């Protein structure tokens, strides 16, 4: 069975500071990993994904994520936070055994303080 943990329900960051939203995962085979963002009263928007290759993945809106196999982590990062980055962020994992289903984390609410 696959699972995802987002250990922080809430992260507060000052505008202009770097931000990190944490995600750890558990799968049977090789993982493929996603980050999505949800703005108020909206659906989820795709940010980035890791399938294979370079451990640093770059995505939309200046976000990036680092895949770390030994620590089974896929943390989302941004060098300089904007107030508009305030939203709910979800990490999701799938496995490599031909399974189309993703398992989502419980979400982390990111608040950027002006």
């Amino acid at each position: 069975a696959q699972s995802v943990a987002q250990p922080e329900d809430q992260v507060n960051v000052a505008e202009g500071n770097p931000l990190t939203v944490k995600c750890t995962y558990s799968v049977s085979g090789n993982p493929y990993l996603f980050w999505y963002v949800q703005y108020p009263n909206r659906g989820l928007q795709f940010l980035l994904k890791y399938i294979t290759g370079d451990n640093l993945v770059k995505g939309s809106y200046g976000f990036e994520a680092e895949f770390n196999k030994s620590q089974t982590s896929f943390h989302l990062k941004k060098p300089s936070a904007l107030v508009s980055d305030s939203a709910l962020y979800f990490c999701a994992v799938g496995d490599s055994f031909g399974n189309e289903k993703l398992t989502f984390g419980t979400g982390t609410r990111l608040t950027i303080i002006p």
Partner: protein
Amino acid sequence: DVKVTQSSRYLVKRTGEKVFLECVQDMDHENMFWYRQDPGLGLRLIYFSYDVKMKEKGDIPEGYSVSREKKERFSLILESASTNQTSMYLCASSPGGSKETQYFGPGTRLLVL
């Protein structure tokens, strides 16, 4: 751009009513999914479909059924709505095969009284 639309943004129903939530995608995707989103629980998969008339139970199928008569349309049915089904319902679609990105609709916020 992929577009996934859901029939209603907000819906209020009474306990015991039969409720239909509809989802349409315009990118010829093979896979379609229904999730519910609850605070502190994240997204939980209710059902998914990998082809017309094909469906598979997700993690929380009890109290729900689905229908996929056409490739672009995936319906979620609450046979007899209950208050514990008050939630945000999200539809998603993806191309066939694993490792594909899922694209989400705007969601339907359902309140069951």
